[in-house]
C-alpha cells in the first residue's frame, strides 16, 4: 500500500513537472525567436546605434553571448536592455515568466516578476537602450503576436516561428550557435557608421525606440517582410526612453528592480500554491483511499478512486479553459490521469482492490487509459507529454501478464506512435517507439512459439520501422532497428535452429540490400549496404569452412568492388577493401595454419589475380597491387621449393619491376623493391642458404643496379634511380659476402671479405656503380673485424703456418685498399686502411718471426712507412718505431747473447738516427741514445758499461757540437752522470770481470779520460766544462782512493792536484786549476784531520813534506804563469780557440 501511494505521488509530480517543463520550452522557443529578430534588426541597422559599428558589435556580441547559453532569459532581457545577456546565465528558469511579461501579450500569464536578476551582471552594450527591466519596456510589436485562441498553452509559438522562419532570410539559423552571424565583421565593414541614417526596419528599432515611432517608420527594402505580429499594435506603455540617460556601452548595469508585493503575491498564489495544492490533493486522495480500504470492499475502493480520478480530470478540463487557472488545471489533469491509471491497475493487480480477475481484461483497460492519455496529450502538441503517455502505454504492455496481447498490441501502438511522429514531425519520437517495441518484446521472454511465428512478428516490427525510416529517414533509426531485430531474431534462432542462423543473416542481408537500393536516390544507402556486407560476411563465416570462407569472401568483396567501380561509389570500394581485409585475415590467420599449402595456395593465387585485376580495372587503387605483391610474397614464403624463400622473393621481384620499369608504374616498382628486400632477409633467416641462390640473388640485384645506372632518367622517380642503385648494389654486396661466407672457412672469412672488398672497390672506382666503393669500405671493416676476431685474438707465434700468415695477408689487402682509394673521402680511407694494415702487418710479423727478430722487422716496417712521405704513414712510422723500440726490451737485450743482441739492436738504433735525419723528430735521438746505452749495458756488463757510456758520451758531445744539436749534448751530460755514478758506486769493479781483460784501472782510466776529453770539447766558459771537469777529477780521486793504500792516499791526491794545475795552465783552463787547488786543500785538511792521528811518523812526515813542496811548486807555477792566467791584455785567460 505504501508503495502504491508513493508511486501515485511521484507520478503526479512527474506529470506536473512535465507540464511546467513544456511551458518552459515553449517560452524559450518564443524568446529565441524574439532574440533572433532583435539581433537581425540590429545587424541590419548599425547606423542607428549612434556609436558606430564597433561599439554595436561589442554590444550585440555581449548580448549574443547571453542568448547563446541561456536563450530564454537572454532573449527576454534583450528586449529590454541589450547587454543583459551575460547576466541571464544564472536566471534561466525565471525567464519564461518574464518573457511574456515583457511582451505584454501573454494571455493570462503571470505578470513579470520584479526581480530580473540577469540585468545585474552584464553591462548593457547599447547606449541607446534604456536601463529599465524588461517589464518596463514596451513590447516590440514585431515579436509579440496575437495569441490564437485555439492554442491556449502555446500562444506565441506559432507567430514566433513565423517570425524566425526562412522568409526573413537575414535572420540566423535557429540554433544558438547560429546567432554568431549577428556579430561578425562583415556587418561592421559593410555598414559604416551613419548616426543620422534612419532605421532600416521597424523590427530593428523595436528595442530602441518607442512603439509609435516604430509603427510610423516605413520599412526599408532590405528589411524582412513584415509579419502580422510586427504590425500588431503594442499594447504596453511607452518607455520614457528620451528622458532616461543612456548608459555607456560598458557602464555598470542598472540595479535590479525590486519585486513588488503584488508580484510576490501573484507568484506565490499562481504557482507555488498550485503545486502545493496538487500535491496535497494527491496525498489526500491516497490517504482517503487508505482509509477507504479499511472501510469498504475492493469494489467500493475502486469506485471511490475512480470517482476522485475522474473528478480531477473533469475539473481540470473545466479550469483549463480559463487562462488564469490554467496552471491549476494542469495540476488537476496530471493528477487525475495518474490516479485513474493506477486505479485501473489496482483493479486487477492489487488484492485489496481487485475487481477484475482476467489479466487480459485488466490489460485492455490499462491500455484504454493509456490510449486516453495519449489522445489527450495530443491536444497539447507536446512531444514530451505525448511521449510520456506512450511511455505509460508501452509500460502497460510491459507489465501485462498476457504475452500474446503484449507482443501483438505493441504493433498498433507502435504504428500509432509512428503516425504521430510523422504527423508532428517528432523525429526522436519514432526512435523511442522502436526502442520500446523491442524492449517490450525482449522482456516478454520465450513463450515457445514456432520459429516462423516469432520471426514473422519480428519481421513485422522490422518492416514497420524500416518503412517509417524510408518515409521519414532518421540517422539512428536503421541501426537501432537492425540491432533490435537482429538481437531478437538471433536469440530466437539460437534456441530453435542454431545451425541455420546463416540463413537468417543471408536473408536479412538481402533485405538490407533491398533497403539500400530503395535508399539509393537519397544519401542514406550506406548503412544498409554496410549491413548487407557485414551480414553476408557473417553468413559466409557461419556456413563455410576454411579456404571456402576465403573464396566466398573474395567473391563478395570483388562484387562490392566491381559495384563500386561501376557506380563510381568510393564507399562500396571501401567496403570491398574491408571485406578483402577480412578475407585475407581469415586466409592467413585461420586457413594457413590449419591447411596444407595445396589447399591454401589456390585461394592465395586467386587473391593475387583478383588484386592485380582490380589494380588494372582502376589504376588509382594501387594498394591492390601492393596486396597482390604481398600475397605473392606469402605464397613464395610458404611454397618455395627447398625452403629457398629468399631466392623466390628476389625472382618474384623481377616481374613487378619489369612491369613498373617498362610502363613507368612506380607502384609496381615499389612492389618489386619490397619483394627484393625480402630476398636477403629470407636468405639470412633461412641460413644456410644455398650458395647458388645467393649467387643468383646477387646477380639479380646487380642487374637491377645496372638497370638503374643505364636507364633514362624518366623511367624512375626523382631519387629512385639513386636509391635503386644504392640498394641494389648493397644487396649484391651482401649476397656476394654471403657466397664468400659459404665457401671460405670461418678462420679465413675475414680475409675473404677483405678480398671481396678489394674487388668491389675496384668496381666502385670504375663507376660500376660508384656505390660499391663505400660498400667495400664497410665490407673491408667487417672483414678486418673478423680477422681480428678469428686470426688476431687466437694468434700464436708457434704452430701451423696458415693462421700465422693470415694477418700479414690481411695487411696486404688493407694496403691494397689504401693504395687504390688513397684519394677518396678526403684521404680518410688511406688513413684508416693503413692504420689497420700496419697493425695487421706488425701482428703478422710477430707471429711469423722468432721473438728476437720482431724488433728489427718492425723497425724495417717503420722505415718503409716513412719513405712514402705521407702524414698518416709518417705518424704510423713513429708509432711503429716506438713499438720496435719497446719490443727490443722484451726479447733482444740478453746478457748471454751478445752477438745477437748487437746484431738486432744496432740496426734499429741506426734506423732511429736515420728516421731522425728524415723526420727531424727529436725523440728519435733519445731512443737511439737509449738503445746505445742499454746495448752497452748488456754487452759489457754492469760496470764495464761505464767505459762504453763514456765513449758514447764523448761521441755524442762531439756530434752535438759539430752538428749543433743540443739534444746530443744533453744526452752526453746524462751519460757522464751515469758513468760517474756507476763507477763511484761500484768502485770500478765487478765480479764478472775477473776473467776478462778489463779491470778497475782500465774502466777508471777510460771513463776519466773520456770525461776530460769531454771537458776539452766543451766551451771554456760554459757550465758543461765545469761539469765534466769536476766529474773527471772526482772520479780520479775516487779511483786513487780505491787503488792507493791509506798512507799514500794524501800523496796521491796531491799529485793529482799538481797534475790538474799543470794541465790547467797550458790549457788555459781555470776549472782544472781550481780543481787542482781544491784537491790540494783537501789534502791539507786530510793531513791535519786524519793523517796526524792515524799515520805513522814517517808517512806523516813525508806527507807534510811532500804536500809542502807541492804547495811551493804550486805557488811558483802561479807566479810563473801569471801572464798566462791574465792573458795578453791583462784579462782572465780564455781558451785559445775562443781567443
Amino acid at each position: 500500500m505504501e508503495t502504491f501511494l508513493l508511486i501515485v505521488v511521484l507520478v503526479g509530480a512527474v506529470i506536473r513537472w512535465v507540464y511546467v517543463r513544456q511551458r518552459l520550452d515553449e517560452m524559450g522557443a518564443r524568446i529565441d525567436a524574439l532574440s533572433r529578430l532583435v539581433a537581425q534588426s540590429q545587424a541590419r541597422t548599425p547606423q542607428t546605434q549612434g556609436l558606430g559599428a564597433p561599439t554595436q558589435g561589442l554590444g550585440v556580441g555581449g548580448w549574443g553571448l547571453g542568448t547563446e547559453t541561456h536563450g530564454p532569459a537572454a532573449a527576454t532581457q534583450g528586449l529590454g536592455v541589450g547587454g543583459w545577456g551575460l547576466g541571464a546565465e544564472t536566471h534561466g528558469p525565471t525567464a519564461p515568466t518574464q518573457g511574456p511579461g515583457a511582451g505584454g501579450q501573454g494571455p493570462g500569464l503571470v505578470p513579470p516578476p520584479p526581480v530580473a536578476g540577469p540585468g545585474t551582471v552584464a553591462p548593457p552594450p547599447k547606449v541607446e537602450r534604456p536601463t529599465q527591466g524588461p517589464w518596463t519596456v514596451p513590447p516590440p510589436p514585431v515579436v509579440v503576436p496575437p495569441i490564437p485562441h485555439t492554442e491556449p498553452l502555446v500562444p506565441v509559438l506559432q507567430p514566433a516561428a513565423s517570425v524566425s522562419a526562412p522568409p526573413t532570410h537575414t535572420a540566423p539559423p535557429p540554433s544558438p550557435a547560429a546567432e554568431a552571424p549577428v556579430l561578425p565583421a562583415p556587418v561592421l565593414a559593410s555598414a559604416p557608421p551613419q548616426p543620422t541614417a534612419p532605421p532600416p526596419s521597424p523590427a530593428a528599432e523595436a528595442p530602441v525606440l518607442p512603439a509609435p515611432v516604430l509603427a510610423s517608420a516605413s520599412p526599408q527594402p532590405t528589411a524582412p517582410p513584415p509579419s502580422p505580429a510586427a504590425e500588431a499594435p503594442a499594447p504596453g506603455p511607452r518607455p520614457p526612453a528620451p528622458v532616461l540617460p543612456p548608459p555607456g556601452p560598458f557602464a555598470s548595469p542598472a540595479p535590479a528592480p525590486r519585486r513588488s508585493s503584488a508580484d510576490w503575491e501573484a507568484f506565490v498564489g499562481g504557482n507555488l500554491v498550485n503545486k502545493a495544492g496538487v500535491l496535497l490533493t494527491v496525498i489526500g486522495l491516497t490517504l482517503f483511499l487508505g482509509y477507504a480500504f479499511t472501510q469498504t470492499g475492493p469494489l467500493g475502493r475502486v469506485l471511490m478512486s475512480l470517482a476522485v480520478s475522474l473528478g480531477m480530470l473533469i475539473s481540470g478540463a473545466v479550469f483549463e479553459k480559463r487562462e488564469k487557472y490554467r496552471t491549476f488545471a494542469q495540476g488537476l489533469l496530471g493528477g487525475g490521469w495518474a490516479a485513474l491509471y493506477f486505479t485501473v491497475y489496482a483493479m486487477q493487480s492489487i488484492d485489496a482492490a481487485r475487481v477484475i480477475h482476467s489479466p487480459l481484461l485488466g490489460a485492455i483497460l490499462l491500455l484504454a487509459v493509456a490510449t486516453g492519455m495519449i489522445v489527450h496529450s495530443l491536444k497539447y502538441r507536446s512531444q514530451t507529454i505525448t511521449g510520456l503517455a506512450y511511455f505509460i502505454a508501452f509500460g502497460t504492455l510491459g507489465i501485462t501478464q498476457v504475452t500474446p496481447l503484449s507482443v501483438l498490441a505493441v504493433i498498433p501502438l507502435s504504428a500509432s506512435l509512428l503516425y504521430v511522429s510523422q504527423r508532428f514531425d517528432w523525429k526522436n519520437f519514432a526512435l523511442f517507439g522502436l526502442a520500446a517495441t523491442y524492449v517490450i518484446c525482449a522482456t516478454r521472454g520465450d513463450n515457445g512459439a514456432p520459429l516462423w511465428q516469432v520471426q514473422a512478428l519480428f519481421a513485422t516490427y522490422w518492416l514497420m520501422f524500416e518503412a517509417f525510416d524510408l518515409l521519414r529517414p532518421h540517422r539512428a533509426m536503421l541501426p537501432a532497428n537492425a540491432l533490435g531485430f537482429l538481437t531478437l531474431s538471433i536469440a530466437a534462432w539460437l534456441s530453435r535452429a542454431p545451425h541455420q542462423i546463416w540463413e537468417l543473416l543471408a536473408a536479412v542481408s538481402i533485405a538490407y540490400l533491398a533497403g539500400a537500393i530503395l535508399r539509393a536516390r537519397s544519401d542514406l544507402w550506406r548503412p544498409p549496404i554496410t549491413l548487407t556486407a557485414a551480414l553476408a560476411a557473417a553468413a559466409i563465416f557461419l556456413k563455410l569452412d576454411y579456404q571456402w570462407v576465403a573464396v566466398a569472401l573474395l567473391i563478395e568483396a570483388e562484387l562490392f568492388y566491381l559495384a563500386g567501380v561501376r557506380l563510381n561509389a568510393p564507399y562500396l570500394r571501401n567496403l570491398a577493401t574491408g571485406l578483402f581485409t577480412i578475407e585475407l585475415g581469415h586466409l592467413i590467420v585461420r586457413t594457413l595454419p590449419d591447411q596444407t599449402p595445396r589447399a591454401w595456395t589456390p585461394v592465395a593465387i586467386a587473391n593475387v589475380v583478383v588484386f592485380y585485376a582490380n589494380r588494372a580495372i582502376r589504376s588509382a587503387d594501387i594498394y591492390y597491387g601492393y596486396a597482390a605483391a604481398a600475397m605473392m610474397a606469402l605464397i613464395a614464403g610458404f611454397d618455395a621449393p627447398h625452403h629457398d624463400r629468399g631466392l623466390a622473393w628476389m625472382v618474384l621481384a623481377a616481374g613487378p619491376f619489369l612491369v613498373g620499369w617498362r610502363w613507368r608504374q612506380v607502384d609496381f616498382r615499389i612492389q618489386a623493391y619490397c619483394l627484393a628486400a625480402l630476398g636477403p632477409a629470407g636468405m639470412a633467416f633461412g641460413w644456410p642458404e644455398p650458395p647458388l641462390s645467393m649467387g643468383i640473388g646477387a646477380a639479380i640485384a646487380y642487374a637491377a643496379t645496372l638497370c638503374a645506372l643505364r636507364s633514362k632518367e624518366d623511367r624512375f622517380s626523382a631519387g629512385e634511380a639513386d636509391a635503386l642503385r644504392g640498394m641494389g648494389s648493397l644487396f649484391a654486396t651482401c649476397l656476394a659476402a654471403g657466397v664468400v661466407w659459404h665457401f671460405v672457412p670461418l678462420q679465413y672469412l675475414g680475409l675473404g671479405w677483405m678480398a671481396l672488398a678489394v674487388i668491389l672497390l675496384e668496381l666502385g672506382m670504375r663507376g660500376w656503380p660508384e656505390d660499391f666503393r663505400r660498400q667495400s669500405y664497410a665490407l673491408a671493416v667487417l672483414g678486418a673485424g673478423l680477422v681480428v676476431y678469428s686470426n688476431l685474438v687466437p694468434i700464436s707465434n708457434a704452430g701451423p703456418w696458415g693462421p700465422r700468415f693470415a694477418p700479414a695477408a690481411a695487411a696486404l689487402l688493407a694496403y691494397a685498399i689504401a693504395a687504390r682509394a688513397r684519394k677518396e673521402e678526403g684521404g680518410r680511407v688511406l688513413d684508416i686502411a693503413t692504420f689497420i694494415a700496419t697493425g695487421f702487418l706488425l701482428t703478422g710479423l710477430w707471429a711469423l718471426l722468432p721473438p728476437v727478430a720482431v724488433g728489427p722487422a718492425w723497425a724495417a716496417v717503420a722505415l718503409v712507412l716513412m719513405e712514402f712521405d705521407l702524414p698518416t704513414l709518417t705518424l704510423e712510422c713513429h708509432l711503429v718505431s716506438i713499438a720496435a723500440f719497446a719490443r727490443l726490451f722484451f726479447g733482444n737485450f740478453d746478457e748471454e747473447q751478445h752477438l745477437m743482441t748487437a746484431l738486432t739492436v744496432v740496426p734499429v738504433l741506426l734506423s732511429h738516427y736515420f728516421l731522425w735525419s728524415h723526420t727531424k723528430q727529436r725523440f728519435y735521438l733519445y731512443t737511439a741514445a737509449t738503445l746505445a746505452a742499454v746495448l752497452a749495458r748488456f754487452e759489457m756488463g754492469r760496470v764495464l758499461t761505464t767505459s762504453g757510456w763514456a765513449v758514447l758520451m764523448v761521441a755524442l758531445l762531439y756530434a752535438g757540437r759539430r752538428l749543433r744539436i743540443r739534444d746530443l749534448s744533453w744526452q752526453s751530460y746524462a751519460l757522464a752522470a751515469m758513468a760517474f755514478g756507476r763507477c763511484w758506486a761500484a768502485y770500478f769493479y765487478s765480479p764478472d770481470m775477473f776473467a776478462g781483460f778489463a779491470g778497475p784501472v782500465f774502466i777508471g782510466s777510460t771513463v776519466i779520460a773520456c770525461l776530460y776529453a769531454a771537458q776539452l770539447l766543451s766551451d771554456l766558459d760554459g757550465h758543461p766544462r765545469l761539469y765534466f771537469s769536476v766529474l773527471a777529477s772526482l772520479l780520479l780521486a775516487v779511483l786513487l782512493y780505491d787503488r792507493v793504500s791509506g798512507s799514500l792516499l794524501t800523496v796521491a791526491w796531491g799529485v793529482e792536484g799538481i797534475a790538474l794545475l799543470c794541465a790547467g795552465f797550458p790549457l788555459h783552463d781555470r776549472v782544472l786549476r781550481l780543481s787542482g787547488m781544491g784537491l790540494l786543500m783537501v789534502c791539507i785538511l786530510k793531513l791535519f784531520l786524519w793523517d796526524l792521528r792515524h799515520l805513522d811518523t814517517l808517512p806523516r812526515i813525508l806527507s807534510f813534506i811532500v804536500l809542502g813542496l807541492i804547495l811551493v811548486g804550486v805557488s811558483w807555477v802561479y807566479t810563473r804563469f801569471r801572464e798566462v792566467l791574465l792573458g795578453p791584455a791583462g784579462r782572465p785567460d780564455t781558451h785559445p780557440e775562443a781567443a
Partner: protein
Amino acid sequence: MKRRLLFVLVLLMLIAATVVASLGSRRGEVSLASLRQLWSDTIRDIDQPGLRLTRLSAAEEMQLGANVLNSVSWPEDPVAAARVERIAQPMLPHVHRTDIQYHFHVVQAGMINAFALPGGQVLVTDGMLAFVQSDDELAEVVGHEMSHVDLRHCVEHYQYQYRLGSLVELFHRLAAMPYSSDQELDADAEGMRLAIAGGYNPAAGPVLFERMQKEMHESAGSPATTPAGELAHSLGEALASYFRSHPPSAERARRLRGLARSAHGAGG
C-alpha cells in the same frame, strides 16, 4: 741520392738482422728481464751512498757476525766443519778483505743450503754436504758464501740496523730487493774466481746448479705463444723476480758456464 743510399743501407741492415735472427737456432725468451736488470742497476747505484756512509769497520762487522751467530743455536758438526775449512783454505788468500777472519760451521739442518753471516761466519748445512759430489763443488759453495762476505753483501743487510735502527733496515731491505738476485750472481762469479784461484775445477759450479735445479724441481715453464701471453708472462716474471732473493738455478748454471768458459779461455 745519399739519403736514398742510406735508406737502403739501413733497411738492408734491418732485413739482414731479421733474417739472421730468424735463422738463429735459439728461439729466445720474451720477458722484461732487461728492464728489471736496468732497474736493479739503478737501485743498486742509488743505494750505495747510504751504504758507504754507514759502513762498518771489519772489527765491528766480525763482532756483529759473532753476535748473530750466537743468537741462534744450531747443532754443529765439527768434523764436517773441518772439511769445509780445509776446502776453504786455498781460497782465503785471494779474498779482497784480508782483515776479515773467516769461520766455517756445519749445521745439522737437513736441508740443502749454505749461508754466510757478517764478519766471515760461513755456515754449510749437512744436507749440502751430502748433496755435493766433490770437493770442487763444495769449493764452489764455500767460495760463493765467502764472496758474500768479501763483497759486503752480508754486512749490508745489517748496516742500517746497526747504525740507524731496525725500521730503517726494514725499508732498506724492501728497497734493495731488486738487486739481491744480482748479488747472488756476483757471489757466484766471485766464488768461482776464488775456486779457480784455490785450484778447484770451475766446471763444477754449473754442474752443481744443474743438479740443484733438478733436486729443487725448478721448471723453466713453457714460453708464451700469444701476444697477451707474452705480455702477461713478462709482467708476471718481472714482478716475481722483483721479490725473488735468488735467481733460478738454471740461469745461475748458465752464467757460471759462461764464466768458466771465459776463465778457461783466459787461462789458455
